[in-house]
């Protein structure tokens, strides 16, 4: 916390606001730690589920059984222990589809972050390091990207090229780099002014060497925080695109697509949209909690 911040806290305490008893700060720390741990557990569980999906599923997620359509989950009235989370509108086991859906979400999240991180990171570092006209061009690119309506452009791209996992990843990767660029640019500008960069330059190192060996390792922490945020966003966007019918193609069990396919039945059996939606919500909140914790642990919240 900065010096002004401490002053303010003192002053506010005198003013009678934000009175902070010792125990509240302990609770706060415990809550934050609990939040990070909670987030880490969620992400780990989903990641393991995604990796070992074929070993975990009780049924074939693609096998239809029209005689057993919309069976409710086992814990509800009329449920059967054979299908823990029930079956969908064409009799596919919901739990098995949910498990395979974790694969799609994690895959899309990771691949998109790699692609957009490469694009945005490169642009941001170049703009921040070289400054001047180069930086103007990078800023212009960021502004243009922000002016493009994200969902509409992604939908258009997918509808034109045809929907597939690869297309969704490339489209999102090409669209979600703006925050990487913004953060990399600012972090690079800060690093560029430091002595060791001048030393490297004086020693005759090439710009490429300086950027990859001196600048990059020193800006990787804020970029890691951005990566968690973007991964969460990519997962939500994939679900949105799939929900709108222009994301992952059926019969793949994307959580967004599961909601879209079950939508017509939601008034009679609400669980058909509750289950995949809750899965999506929990995964995204887990990633965000992890990112929030990372932000505090790495100390990037104080510099940003």
């Amino acid at each position, binding site marked *: 916390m900065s010096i*002004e*911040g401490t*002053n*303010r*806290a003192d*002053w*506010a305490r005198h*003013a*009678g*606001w*934000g009175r*902070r008893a010792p125990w*509240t*700060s302990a*609770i*706060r720390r415990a*809550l*934050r730690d609990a939040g990070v741990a909670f987030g880490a557990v969620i992400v780990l569980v989903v990641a393991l589920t995604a990796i070992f999906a074929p070993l975990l599923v009780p049924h074939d997620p693609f096998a239809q059984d029209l005689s057993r359509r919309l069976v409710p989950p086992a814990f509800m009235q009329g449920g059967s222990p054979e299908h823990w989370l029930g079956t969908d509108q064409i009799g596919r086991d919901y739990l098995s589809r949910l498990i395979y859906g974790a694969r799609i979400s994690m895959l899309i999240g990771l691949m998109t972050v790699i692609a957009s991180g490469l694009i945005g990171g490169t642009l941001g570092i170049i703009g921040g390091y070289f400054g001047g006209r180069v930086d103007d061009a990078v800023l*212009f690119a960021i*502004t*243009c990207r*922000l*002016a*493009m*309506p*994200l*969902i*509409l*452009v992604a*939908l*258009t*791209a997918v*509808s*034109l*090229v045809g929907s597939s996992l690869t297309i969704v990843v490339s489209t999102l990767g090409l669209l979600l780099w703006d925050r990487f660029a913004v953060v990399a640019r600012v972090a690079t500008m800060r690093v560029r002014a430091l002595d060791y960069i001048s030393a490297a330059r004086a020693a005759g190192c090439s710009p490429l060497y300086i950027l990859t060996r001196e600048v990059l390792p020193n800006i990787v922490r804020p970029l890691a925080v951005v990566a968690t945020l973007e991964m*969460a966003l990519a997962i*939500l966007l994939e*679900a*949105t695109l799939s*929900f*709108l*019918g*222009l994301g992952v193609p059926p019969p793949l069990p994307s959580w*967004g697509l599961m*909601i879209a396919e079950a*939508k017509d039945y*939601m*008034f009679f059996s*609400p669980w058909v*949209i*509750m289950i995949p*939606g809750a899965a*999506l*919500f929990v995964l*995204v*909140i887990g990633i*965000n*909690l992890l990112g*929030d914790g990372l932000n505090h642990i790495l100390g990037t919240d104080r510099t940003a």
Partner: protein
Amino acid sequence: MLHFLARRVVLALLVAVTVLGISFALTRLSGDLAISIAGPNATSEDIAQVRKNYGLDRPLPVQFADWVAHAATGDLGTSYFYKGSVSGLIAERLPVTLTLGLTGLAIALAVALPLGILAALHEGTLIDRMASLIAMIGQAMPSFWLGLVLMITLGLNLQWLPISGTGSWQNYVMPGVTLAFTGIPALMRLTRAGMIEALASDYIRTTRANGLGPASIVLKHALRNAAMPVVSIAAVQFGFMLGGSIVIEVVFALHGIGYLGWESILKNDFPVVQAVVLFLAIVYVGLTLLADLLNAMLDPRLRSS
């Protein structure tokens, strides 16, 4: 000030033209438009005919220049599907999207401002933590799912609100709340940060020393300064909300601009898609420009940079 204004306007125009170029390239380079329009059962003569009728046989730069020249005069072409003018279609659908966007923004501000102020006043306490948890939940909630859940609970189970249609103000409550959720996290965090900074400043210490009560300090002095970045972000956020309203319009079957865009994508009606992308981009660029100017007007320090 005039120099600043001119620079910003030129930049905004450049951004608009670039986005236009990209969206144009996107629809032309990613496949043969004529084949999409002619449909799956078309013969090669049909496709050739479509290509000729729609002017798709001309070189790309010529097509682009032609389209831009027409767009500049307000003529956005003719819809392949509706057979009417695209500008007319957009004008017809605009009120729904604007109503939805403004409702969403109003609800978002009504929630985010008090929450942000409260969090700032109790910085670092449980209340602050709860507020940031609410922001995080808002960020993680898939908006289409929230819309469906609201429809089931408020519409079907409690029967408080109509599930679809655009007849009365009640039709905009659920979509408005859903849309507001997408804007609340950013607005709340910014209000909180702005208030914390304002409360720490010297002039607040002065008002405090002068014996003003907490309510007067918070509302009259601190908030006024914290509001500046919030106003400009609210303008930008409004642009994002209009762009994001596409999902909510589809969920609630509200026939606004976003719905039109979605429909046209599914029908390969590209003049409409291009126009909607252009429209949303211009609205966003316009709002950002407005926010910049507003900030420069309120804070002379920004004008020099």
